[in-house]
């Protein structure tokens, strides 16, 4: 117990001190600083140390100590210009005239009495990223990841109630406890002796994830999606900033800096507001280490799958059975349509795994047509998806939304920032387009542009950001699911018409039962792990199967050249890939190929049928 406490202390407080002191004292031998950082990075990789670091996502800012180590799970929303700072500088004590070398790294402000003419001054360069919490991250992800954290921290002190209960209690009488707590973080520079386990734990526990953003509302924090909450952060990057790209998701470990006053600069007020917002709202984080996140599912180990063979093998063996469960669940949700459920699974685990010049491979946009418009079916359907995928967004394609929403990020040259739009999403976010909301009417210029942007997103998996004088293309990896009545006006990789097995008269009833169907949380977690896992698996096709696929294609063409085109083969290969992965198989087997062919055939025949009924499809 005590051991954990010490580690905890050490991590959040000692690391910055260690780094500062090694850097400044041993400037001549600058290897020291890198060693300290390296040592620290190793510490993070090993064991579960990283769970001990408080996270900006969960802990309100005013409970965190300045200059302590924190982590932040975020998306790079904007990249500012690089800045030059004093890497090493010398200070002169006005009374004693003694000179001292100091390190400017990982800090925003210098000490007093800087000797500007010192020959020891070293100017260095760093880059600033504007980071926001991962857009569309679903509540369950936040809940689980914050509970993981608090569990670790709550363990040492038995005198406190478990965090969840405590939190709800907190929320009830916020008024009483708040003032008392707030005194502490403002107590100025702490000496290490001040931080005893109890004080720290208390601060941890009293976190209230939702209570913090009320004050932030007047400042536009530039979140991609409307109604998002959470802290945004200016992350200062000291090394290798070229390896980061816009819209990357990262877990940043760094030193928190909040003690900043206003800064005089000659830019316009808007620019000032954006580039140096009050540190109490947008804290600065000096990056020590950043971990790219391949996914943001807290139920999965964050390390690469290969390193975690035990986890991998245990889930792989279960996959087929989980698939059965999830299939029956989806069948139920989709009103008894098993084929649509099958396609829904494939869609949810799809992923752009590679690009061939302009062609993204592996995308699988699903158009679910024939959605009932009664009893807000699509919304309920989305709520279910929301429960299963780590991040998602519901976009009602109403005329008003299309004509008014900002989908494509746009550069604001006055404030010199990239104003975010709803299509600036992290990889593997599920974007749910509800076309049933679309009514007749006229799209204006913005509307046409928005629809074009959606079309581009679906066909090429890219978004052209608007830089006013030119456009810039940013590749993305977003799973788009379109729910519509007839065929969608947007392109899609695959269209399936829903065939409810429920009589229209019972539709209402069975719809309401979907929502009522409570899923045990262990069951839900199983589904969540399954969907994220399937996406991360590797996949290959053996030469043998390649041959038989080729033969199949040639045979099919021989019978009826019109029946299958190159595009169909493209789709079938994707379906086969996703089908294998959904079964936990990492290479294509003959069976899976046949099965893929089979469900494709079923789907196509259903489309023909539908065509005959409708008679207006091209």
């Amino acid at each position: 117990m005590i051991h954990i406490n010490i580690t905890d202390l050490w991590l959040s407080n000692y690391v910055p001190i260690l780094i500062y002191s090694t850097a400044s004292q041993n400037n001549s031998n600058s290897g020291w600083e890198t060693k300290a950082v390296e040592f620290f990075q190793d510490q993070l990789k090993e064991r579960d140390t990283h769970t001990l670091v408080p996270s900006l996502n969960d802990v309100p800012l005013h409970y965190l100590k300045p200059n302590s180590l924190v982590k932040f799970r975020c998306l790079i929303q904007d990249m500012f210009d690089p800045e030059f700072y004093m890497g090493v500088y010398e200070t002169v004590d006005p009374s004693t005239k003694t000179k001292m070398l100091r390190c400017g790294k990982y800090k925003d402000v210098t000490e007093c009495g800087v000797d500007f003419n010192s020959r020891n001054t070293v100017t260095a360069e760093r880059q600033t990223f504007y980071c926001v919490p991962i857009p569309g991250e679903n509540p369950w992800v936040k809940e689980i990841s914050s509970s993981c954290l608090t569990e670790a921290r709550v363990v040492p002190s038995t005198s406190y109630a478990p965090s969840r209960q405590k939190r709800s209690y907190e929320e009830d009488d916020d008024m009483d406890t708040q003032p008392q707590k707030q005194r502490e973080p403002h107590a100025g520079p702490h000496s290490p002796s001040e931080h005893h386990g109890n004080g720290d734990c208390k601060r941890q526990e009293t976190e209230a994830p939702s209570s913090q953003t009320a004050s932030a509302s007047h400042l536009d924090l530039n979140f991609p999606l409307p109604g998002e909450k959470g802290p945004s952060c200016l992350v200062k990057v000291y090394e290798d900033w070229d390896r980061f790209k816009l819209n990357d998701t990262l877990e940043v470990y760094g030193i928190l800096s909040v003690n900043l006053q206003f800064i005089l600069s000659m830019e316009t007020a808007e620019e000032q507001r954006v580039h140096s917002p009050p540190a109490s709202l947008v804290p600065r984080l000096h990056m020590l280490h950043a971990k790219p996140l391949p996914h943001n599912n807290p139920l999965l180990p964050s390390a690469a799958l290969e390193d975690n063979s035990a986890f991998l093998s245990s889930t792989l063996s279960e996959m087929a059975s989980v698939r059965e469960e999830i299939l029956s669940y989806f069948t139920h949700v989709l009103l008894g349509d098993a084929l649509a459920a099958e396609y829904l699974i494939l869609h949810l685990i799809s992923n752009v795994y590679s690009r061939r010049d302009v062609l993204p491979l592996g995308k699988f946009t699903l158009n679910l047509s024939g959605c009932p418009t009664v009893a807000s079916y699509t919304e309920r359907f989305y709520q279910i998806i929301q429960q299963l995928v780590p991040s998602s967004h519901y976009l009602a394609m109403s005329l008003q939304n299309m004509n008014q929403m900002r989908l494509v990020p746009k550069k604001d040259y006055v404030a010199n920032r990239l104003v975010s739009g709803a299509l600036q999403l992290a990889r593997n976010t599920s974007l749910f387009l509800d076309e049933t909301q679309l009514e007749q009417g006229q799209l204006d210029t913005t509307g046409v542009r928005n629809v074009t942007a959606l079309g581009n997103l679906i066909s090429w998996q890219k978004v052209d950001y608007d830089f006013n004088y030119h456009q810039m293309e940013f590749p993305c990896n977003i799973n788009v699911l379109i729910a519509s009545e007839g065929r969608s006006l947007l392109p899609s990789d695959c269209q399936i018409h829903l065939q409810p097995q429920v009589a229209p008269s019972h539709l209402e009833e069975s719809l309401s039962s979907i929502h009522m169907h409570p899923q045990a949380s262990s069951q839900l977690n199983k589904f969540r792990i399954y969907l994220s896992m399937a996406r991360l698996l590797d996949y290959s096709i053996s030469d043998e199967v390649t041959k038989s696929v080729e033969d199949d294609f040639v045979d099919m063409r021989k019978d009826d050249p019109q029946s299958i085109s190159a595009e169909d083969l493209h789709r079938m290969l994707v379906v086969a890939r996703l089908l294998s992965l959904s079964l936990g198989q990492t290479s294509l087997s003959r069976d899976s190929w046949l099965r893929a062919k089979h469900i494709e055939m079923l789907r196509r025949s259903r489309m023909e049928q539908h065509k005959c009924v409708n008679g207006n499809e091209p």
Partner: protein
Amino acid sequence: MSSPTSTPGGRKRGRNTNPPTPSSEDPTSPPSQRRRGQDSSTGDLMPMPTSPATDMLSPAAPQDTSLFSSPRPSVQPNEVDMSSPLMYGTPMRGTPARQRPDLGSVRKAPQVDLHSEPPSTDGAVASEPNAGQRLVIWGTDVNVGTCKEKFQRFLQRFTDPNSTEDENAGLDLNEPLYMQKLEEISVVGDPVLNVNCRHVQSFDAELYRQLICYPQEVIPTFDMAVNELFFERFPDSILEYQIQVRPYNALKTRNMRSLNPEDIDQLITISGMVIRTSQLIPEMQEGFFQCQVCAYSTRVEVDRGRIAEPAVCRNCNNTHSLALVHNRSVFSDKQMIKVQESPEDMPAGQTPHTTVVYAHNDLVDKVQPGDRVNITGIYRAVPMRVNPRQNNVKSVYKTHIDAIHFRKTDEKRLHGLDEEAEQKLFTEDRVQTLKELAAKPDVYERLSSALAPSIYEHEDIKKGILLQLFGGTRKDFSQTGRGNFRAEVNILLCGDPGTSKSQLLQYVYNLVPRGQYTSGKGSSAVGLTAYVMKDPETRQLVLQTGALVLSDNGICCIDEFDKMSDNTRSVLHEVMEQQTLSIAKAGIICQLNARTAVLAAANPVESQWNPKKTTIENIQLPHTLLSRFDLIFLMLDPQDEAYDRRLAHHLVSLYYQSEEQMEEEFLDMAVLKDYIAYARTYISPRLSEEASQALIEAYVDMRKIGSGRGMVSAYPRQLESLIRLAEAHAKVRFSEKVESIDVEEAKRLHREALKQSATDPRTGFVDISILTTGMSATARKRKEEVAQALKKLIQAKGKTPAMKYQQLLDDLRGQSETAITKELFDEALRALADEDYLTVTGKTVRLLA
């Protein structure tokens, strides 16, 4: 402006009159400067901290240094005035000097005698025995005298016989270039001399190094040198101000992203796009003080953003009696300009960087937002203060560039003079690789297969697009009245949906630097050409250019060409042959260059290609437009087993091969890009004698094919296409000469495209008139026959003045052995109406005469 009277008289520039300058060991010299002196002795570039070393010698005084760039450590002004060799404020035959705020407070730098240290610049300096030559400007290794002499020598001797710059148009290239420019100055009276740094470098590398490293000191020296020379040469000329030297094209830095702390205080050139300009900021240069007691006035120069207000009046000795008189003080103009990295320079997945640039005096308002510029200037960094009342500073510097020279890079696109601005710099290695590649016999095949490797087969189409990427040679016949000759190859792809036409277009759009991608449905005529817009900020009318103008010198990819409205399509007529775009709208009448190649894709009208119909009938495009395409390809599903197998293999491998494997097989996209860029800039092939002969033969042959059947199968437009294709093919080989193999390939490709698109489905013959008149010769013959049959029918009916339309059609159908469509019948009627034989009104047909 510093008037002649304000400077102490009798002090001429020149080293010999200088009082002894403090040696570098002088205790008052600040450490950073001492540092520079020592550094220069080791020949290193100066290390970083020099610039941010602002004056913290008087830390108590709160001031906003951020507005002013890299000030020198404070030295007593009068002491400096006496010692500075750079006081070029001295009247030069009555011509006043103008201050250069772009260089900062340069005249404060005194000279330093280097004789106590081993001089590093011995090579240049020691050869001249003059002791004064050992004096260098404090903190640098610049000796004013030597530097001046060198520069004068440069001006007098430098010639650039191979100059291609448009600025030098009209100058005799074999005479000293800059002397001619000085002459120009004496005539025009614009006292600015732009100096290409590359010229300086080729003339004297050492001088160039000094210019780059110590621009603040060297440029005033240049100013002095040029003025001395100028007034010696043209003693009678009257200039408003003394000449200022504006260097440009410093090779230090090209890209904004590569700016780093080492560039601070150096002369750099970066390229970028102006995104915002501020209002004009008046900046005080000189304060005018007047004594309230005795009305004695004095002037005080601004020193690093501060005016040392005189405490005591020198005339009446009253203290604190002087007041600043604003409207007699001297101000200079200043403007903040934000420049953003040009999109081409950026790595994928990152956002563009921006830099602040300050323009001074006449450079203010030289550029507008949206302009592409090359900026030469001095890179500065100044620390920011957290709070003016506090001493601790934010550990971040603010950086900006003091502009010395702007050069718009897109200006030329309007004039269409040359492509120098777009010249990409290729390293020697790269050129070598490219040339090696070009020397390979199968380079053409290699490149075409590297094009869009994810798209299967369609070899000829890829080859066609490849030739389009290279383009023909631009020829100018404006002397003979014909105007420019189109060099761009236009291509139309048509075919079944789902044959990856769009993908091909996307690929091309991503490959070429100046590509535009539009969709026929989504673009209006306005979006393609240009429109006039009121700028919301300035309320000025601005001409916004559309896709076709933006892709000048590039490729405009137009998808869903068939879905474009006729109105929109009509603007393409001019662009596709004349390569210009005329606008007459909102009082703006102009002609813009649109030398763009068009790559269009069209779907057949009936969603599936109907092999029984001609191209025109299938895509329903006006033949006037079709004939402007050099190559028209059909992208059809070939439907044969071997093809299917290869296609399947290709697709499957696409889905399982790793990225590396694929890359091994094909050329890198970057190499392809460079290859094309290199060929486009450096290679302009000309027809050889035998190639011309081959072309003539080919053309005659093409005409002959048709003439046998009474058809014309080639028009001069086809000959022009052939020439363009042959030239492009020569470019692919990096050959300066079009040879017969180029013509062979052009012929083959042209024939292939023709075979696909201009085959008359009724006869199976190639018939160019399908494209030129929209109707094949057989169809025309058939029309004629039907008309004759109809006439006979009517004549057989005897003298009936009017007939029912439907009745006539039925009769004709009953009589004819071939099927007669309604269209055919209508056409026949029209033909007879043209002969004034009959007239059709509504549903009745009336005979005339």
